[in-house]
């Protein structure tokens, strides 16, 4: 009986640790509030090439924010391209397919022809090669 309680205690500790990890990770990997605000305001949007683009001419703050994210994205694409034996452009484009699809209604995305669209409840206009 004593051993049983001990076992339960250990399980509880492990459970708490797992719960902390699950809760803590998404909090760490959240979007910057300024980035989130620029997205939902439609100042910036997702391009088919896997990078962020300016819908209207950007303020210095928005420009700095987008450039910073795009540099980080390129670094991530480069790393993943090496892992998957593909080119940076190929990996970025595949990510772009997913990122355009993941835009929520009200956010902007760029069509393959280069025009900016506001995402609504219908499927976004994407490149024919997107899965």
């Amino acid at each position, binding site marked *: 009986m004593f051993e049983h309680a001990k076992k339960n205690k250990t399980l509880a500790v492990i459970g708490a640790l797992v719960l902390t990890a699950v809760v803590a990770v998404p909090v760490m990997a959240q979007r910057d509030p300024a980035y989130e605000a620029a997205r939902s305001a439609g100042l910036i949007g997702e391009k088919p090439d896997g990078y962020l683009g300016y819908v209207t001419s950007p303020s210095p703050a928005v420009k700095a924010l987008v450039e910073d994210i795009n540099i980080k994205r390129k670094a991530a694409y480069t790393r*993943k391209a090496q892992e998957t034996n593909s080119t940076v452009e190929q*990996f970025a484009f595949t990510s772009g397919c997913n990122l355009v699809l993941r835009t929520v209604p009200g956010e902007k995305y760029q069509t393959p022809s280069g025009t900016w669209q506001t995402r609504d409840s219908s499927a976004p206009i994407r490149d024919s090669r997107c899965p």
Partner: protein
Amino acid sequence: MLYQTSQLTEQTFDAIRLKMRSLSTAGPIFGVLIGLSACVQVSAPDKPIVINLNINIKQEVVYRLDGDAKSLINEEADIF
């Protein structure tokens, strides 16, 4: 009569010489003018020029990378 004829020929030669001289200066000018008029006329296309930068991306590659792309977006959610 003989003198007159020689003078006439002299005059004719002078005229020819003068004409040749003017031709020799006019020649390059004409050449330039012909050269200019022979320029290839390029008119702007009425349709917008669309440069497809993704021409080297094949659909099969996109399908192969799709899973990795999805996991990257989830892993680094702060930059996506």
